[in-house]
């Protein structure tokens, strides 16, 4: 008998990390959906519901967030999707750079 649901609920008490290959693939697919194709065509981005459903089935390491961001050089906000770990890493890098410059 498949116990997929019961084992997936495990993520709440997951002190262990469960590297899921399928989850990574899904994550890459979701992120690649944000890519701008040659010719300026933008592929459909995942909705907030799709993001929430995906995030519920993966480990915190694999979770993504989609939000409106205003890139430098324009006032038009764009919806972008990123891995949380990338946001954290960028933020940490910027903090370190700032500390280095101010020192």
């Amino acid at each position: 008998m498949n116990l997929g649901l019961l084992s997936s609920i495990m993520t709440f008490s997951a002190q262990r990390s469960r590297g899921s290959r399928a989850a990574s693939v899904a994550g890459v697919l979701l992120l690649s959906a944000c890519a701008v194709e040659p010719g300026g065509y933008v592929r459909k981005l995942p909705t907030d519901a799709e993001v929430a459903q995906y995030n519920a089935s993966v480990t915190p390491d694999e979770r993504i967030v989609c939000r409106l961001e205003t890139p430098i050089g324009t006032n038009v906000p764009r919806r972008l999707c990123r891995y949380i770990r990338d946001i954290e890493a960028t933020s940490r890098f910027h903090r370190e750079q700032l500390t280095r410059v101010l020192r």
Partner: protein
Amino acid sequence: MPTPRSNQAAPSAPLTRKAPCLLILACAAFTYSIFAADAPNHFNEARAQALLVAGQAALEEGDLSLAQTTLDQAIQLLKINEGLYSTEQLVPIEQLMWAQMRAGLWPQLDTSLGYYYWLLERIETTTLDAQLAIAKNMRSLYLEAAAHPSNPMPPRHLSAALRTNWQTLSYIEATLGAEHPALLPWLYDGMLLQFIESRLNERQGLTNYQYKTDGSEFISGWSLSRREAEAASHSIGLSMLDRIESIARARIMTERSQKKALVKSSAGQNTQLSQLNAALALYRGDWERLAENEGKARAHYEEANSNVSFRGVLRAPELLPRPLFETDPAVLTIETKAAENSVTQAWSERFPGVTQRIVDALASNKQVRRAKKAQ
């Protein structure tokens, strides 16, 4: 041919060695005959059941300490009698977790949750219905935990309730298909959970738990702003209604194509479609009204009013969201009026605007039963 060693008769022991053995056996038999009547059998199956019933009764009466002691004993007995991986343990562990949660014993609850999930991973046979019942129970447990006044981390448990609902949806999609009517109650519940989430005071912490951890550790740093979290929550509610529409419409169309072969007239299906459209417009209007988008709400309500029978359905904000998804205007009218006439009981100070009625609806099986009937 030599006889195999195992088949050979054992050589008889000398009488001097047999005597003490016989004496010990006689003593044992005598002692048993004296004390058997007095001493209870602690490993008796009936005793485990009696403890379970007593524990459940204590839990219902609010005697949490007695409930924990009794249920703990029942679990130990069931482990011994039925085996370490026995399914019989699930019910008392669930009851024990409710008792621990209501008593505000958070570390003990975490231990029980750990054991419960460990056990679930090892259980070999169970049905889809049983799994969905477990998911529903866990979702209710997390919700109640999030509302508990002594809970130091309510966003963590609310986030777990939301995650459980999403995981259940994913599981039903993977097992029965992405357009299966069994998804309907879980989709509508997902919308109700988004409403509950939108009413949580401490939303900053919630986004941390949603994105960065599943555990109990304290986390800080990056999280979505309140405005972003509200926008995402609102958008998710609308997506849930879109999916409900797509599944319900597909079901009506399938029924229509099946009946067309038999009967030419499809007046019944047209009524069903018209009711579905009006009901969805009504629910979308409710959702916009809850998000204080009065203009959009009015537009949806006008669309719902195009079906005359929906004009009498109440739309007062204090009656929203409706506990169930219903397309029959007569049932909708009756249920909303009943809600208007009953006393509105607030659920928790931490979730202003959430009524006990909503939480009870999430815990009940009414919607699941309807979905099954419709299948």
